[in-house]
């Protein structure tokens, strides 16, 4: 930021220097002068609705609202005169004339909180201590600050039914003070537009068009509105009755490769909620539904595995960790390298992945290590990795003048990327969407092309071709129905200084992906386009860096400026294995026949093949480490609570088994120990100032390495579409995600039928 000349102003007879280009309210706040305010909020455009922030300014008539009045040199401002105080009380009274006020003015107010000595005077719906917002309510706070202790107006109860039919949060508009924060955050920050004021006057309410539900109206369930509401109107279903959290811990979401920053809210050593951080450079606080709402129910699921157990003919027997380690070590000892298979999850931390590959190589002496990304991408894996490792940072979207998305929708995922795209389009960038069905970006796009997957690569090819030949010159070779459109958008793209191609899950999981990847490479290498691959494999780049792929050594892919050839050894899933070890993975479609199955995860698998040994693992809120996001930033995962029951970190379990088998150098006692070794083997990995850079992966050479892969469900509700964590679909344990998944699947189906 450039140094600006400060302005001299007088606030309440104090002479102060304040930043220019701010409002009186901001200036006052920065100088520690308190002015009550309800409707304004940092990161939101000012609105001037509540009028509580009124002040007196010499030379200005009346009482200007400080949140909308810019400061000027020499202003003399008073924020706390007796007129202002009584005016504010009057304004607040009017505001409260439609708000159940019992929680504010009851004379039992203070005692009630502690002793609950009185009989409740009001029903659940009208507030009192039964409002979910009680004790963390901005309206309560303001009422106290404004010094209002009673009201002379009758309270009009609007009698709206409480809206509970949408997933994730409930809405009780009887408590709404129409401050408009939710409307502004939904429209100007999320650029979503689910919420708007409806009707006017006494009938004013907030919500989507035509009495639609939020689900029907295109709500992303990002929870931004819930976070900004100063009253108890909007409340998270899962955590509304927990009251005020005890503390919070900043960490990184590991549900996808964006790597959003989360402020986990804790109460009694439990994660009850997750809030965004608007100052986070990676995501700008634009969490998607998964990070915002799908964490507590997963972590606290009643299905959580809490103790090691072993399968016996009469069911599972709970055993101690010592016994479990013995059992695992005994089984693994003496297995020949080709008789074992390790399956890791791309959603593990860098440290866990590093230890897992060490374990496979040093302890089992094998290189048979697979993961969902390998199986899903099959023999298209290398071109995919090449693109993912050569991807651009998310902030390039901000400077892009042309954006093309292929099979990308950011309603329920990748919203920090999607919202930035929307913002760029709103600010004048050319946005073109290409997909088989509607995308949430279509609304802001110049043209939304809808066509079958099989034609996407051809479309990109024509575009690349046309651009390579410098536009207009020569004839456009394209299908008739495209010519006009392609000519127009190609011209726009060739005039643009920066173009970005965003490849979404629809493309990554389509039959024609190989060709799409190839064309993307052409656009990047020949025409200088930037590429962002929006895939679901959280720590994919960490896997590459840590060497958690067969045939890839730790650090090998990180030599920027060089090139590497990835040659995977043949992995044959049709051969029966002696031991299969699932580390943090729950997808059993990858499981080959085996004599013995070790299952290490947080939740049980949904399958008929029962694991022989279950090792309960802690989840990302329960142990520290780092994860690498899609841009190559190494981000901190912070332990927020103790692990569930007896669960242990993945690296810990692996180290103990290795010790027992007396093989390898895995004697880690803490995660710092793992990091020391990583530092030695993978140079510069934890250098937090810069992103990790990858060597160019040789994509031409692609051997067939996988035999017996499970059948892909093309163009269906496959891996990319129904999000999961450690192989367990979120929809299985998070009630709201189930609703969302069903909605996505039925709307896809009806779109298909319509076509």
């Amino acid at each position: 930021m450039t140094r600006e000349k400060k302005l001299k102003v007088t606030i309440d007879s104090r002479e102060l220097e304040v930043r220019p280009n701010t409002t009186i309210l901001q200036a006052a706040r920065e100088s520690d002068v308190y002015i009550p305010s309800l409707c304004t909020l940092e990161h939101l455009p000012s609105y001037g609705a509540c009028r509580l922030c009124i002040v007196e300014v010499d030379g200005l008539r009346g009482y200007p609202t400080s949140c909308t009045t810019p400061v000027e040199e020499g202003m003399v401002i008073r924020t706390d005169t007796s007129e202002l105080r009584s005016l504010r009380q009057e304004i607040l009274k009017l505001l409260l004339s439609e708000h159940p006020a019992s929680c504010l003015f009851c004379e039992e107010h203070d005692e009630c909180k502690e002793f609950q000595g009185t009989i409740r005077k009001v029903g659940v719906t009208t507030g009192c201590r039964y409002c979910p917002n009680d004790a963390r309510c901005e309206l309560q706070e303001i009422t106290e600050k404004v010094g209002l202790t009673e009201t002379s107006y009758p309270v009009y109860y609007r009698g709206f039914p409480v809206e509970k039919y949408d997933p994730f949060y409930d809405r009780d508009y009887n408590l709404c003070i129409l401050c408009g924060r939710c409307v502004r955050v939904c429209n100007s920050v999320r650029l979503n537009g689910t919420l708007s004021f409806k009707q006017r006057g006494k009938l004013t309410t907030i919500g989507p068009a035509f009495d639609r539900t939020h689900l029907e109206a295109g709500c992303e369930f990002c929870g931004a509105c819930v976070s900004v509401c100063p009253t108890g109107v909007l409340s998270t279903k899962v955590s509304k009755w927990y009251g005020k959290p005890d503390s919070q811990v900043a960490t990184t979401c590991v549900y996808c490769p964006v790597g959003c920053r989360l402020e986990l809210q804790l109460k009694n050593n439990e994660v009850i909620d997750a809030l965004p951080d608007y100052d986070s450079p990676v995501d700008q606080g634009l969490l998607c539904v998964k990070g915002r709402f799908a964490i507590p129910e997963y972590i606290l699921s009643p299905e959580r595995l809490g103790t090691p157990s072993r399968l016996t003919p009469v069911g599972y027997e709970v055993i101690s960790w010592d016994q479990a380690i013995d059992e695992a070590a005994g089984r693994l000892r003496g297995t020949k390298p080709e008789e074992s298979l390790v399956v890791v999850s791309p959603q593990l931390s860098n440290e866990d992945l590093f230890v897992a590959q060490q374990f496979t190589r040093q302890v089992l002496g094998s290189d048979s290590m697979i993961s969902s990304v390998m199986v899903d991408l099959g023999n298209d894996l290398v071109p995919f990795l090449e693109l993912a490792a050569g991807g651009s940072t998310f902030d390039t979207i901000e400077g892009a003048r042309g954006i093309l998305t292929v099979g990308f929708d950011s309603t329920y995922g990748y919203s920090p990327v999607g919202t930035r795209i929307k913002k760029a389009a709103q600010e004048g960038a050319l946005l073109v969407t290409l997909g088989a069905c509607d995308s949430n970006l279509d609304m802001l796009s110049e043209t939304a092309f809808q066509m079958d997957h099989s034609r996407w690569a051809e479309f990109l090819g024509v575009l690349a071709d046309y651009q390579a030949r410098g536009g207009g010159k020569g004839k456009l070779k394209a299908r008739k129905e495209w010519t006009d459109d392609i000519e127009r958008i190609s011209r726009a793209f060739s005039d643009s200084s920066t173009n970005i191609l965003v490849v979404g899950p629809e493309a990554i999981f389509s039959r024609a992906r190989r060709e799409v990847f190839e064309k993307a490479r052409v656009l990047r290498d020949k025409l200088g386009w930037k590429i962002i691959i929006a895939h679901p494999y959280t720590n994919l780049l960490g896997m590459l860096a840590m060497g958690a792929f067969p045939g890839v050594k730790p650090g090998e892919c990180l030599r920027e400026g060089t090139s590497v050839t990835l040659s995977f050894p043949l992995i044959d899933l049709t051969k029966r294995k002696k031991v299969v070890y699932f580390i943090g993975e729950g997808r059993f479609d990858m499981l080959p026949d085996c004599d013995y199955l070790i299952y290490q995860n947080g939740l049980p698998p949904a399958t008929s093949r029962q694991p022989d040994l279950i090792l309960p693992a802690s989840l990302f809120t329960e142990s520290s480490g780092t994860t690498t996001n899609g841009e190559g930033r190494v981000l901190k995962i912070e332990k927020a609570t103790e692990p569930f029951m007896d669960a242990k970190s993945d690296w810990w379990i692996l180290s103990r088994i290795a010790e027992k088998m007396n093989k390898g150098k895995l004697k880690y006692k803490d995660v710092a120990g793992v990091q020391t070794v990583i530092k030695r083997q993978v140079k510069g990995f934890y250098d937090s100032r810069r992103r990790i850079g990858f060597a160019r992966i040789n994509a031409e050479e692609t051997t067939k390495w996988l035999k017996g892969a499970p059948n892909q469900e093309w163009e269906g509700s496959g891996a990319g579409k129904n999000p999961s964590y450690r192989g367990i679909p979120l929809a299985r344990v998070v009630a709201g995600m189930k609703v969302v998944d069903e909605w996505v699947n039925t709307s896809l189906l009806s779109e298909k039928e319509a076509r």
Partner: protein
Amino acid sequence: MPEPIRTILEKHSREPDELIPILQDVQKEYGYISAESVKGISKYLRISENTIYGVSSFYAQFRFTEPGRHSVKVCLGTACHVRGGATLLEMLERGLGVHCGETTEDKRFGLERVACLGCCALSPVVQIDKEIFSRMTVNRLTEQLKEYE
């Protein structure tokens, strides 16, 4: 997109300021603003359907349900209210199976309420299309409605 709405849209530029003029044209053409129209306008102007609805519901001039072939307006001004207007409305809502502001499924009647039709002396008053019926009773109203197709 159905043809007429496309023709309407193409008469306007894709600026958000065009919203109200477009809505007015749509209402003139169809008599109301359907969910379909809102969707079309949303794509054209790049504003969400919800925002369009929010803006247009602010103005009393726009309606979102198809008008019936006949409009039935029940007066609920003070005089009529006191003398049974509300009962008439309730009976109509039940009899026609619609809420105030809606149109019957067979599109025969659109039911609305108004505030004072300016003939309080004759209350309670009901207006069907252009005609005013005074001193209405439930029975007479039932009979009267049979006259319309």
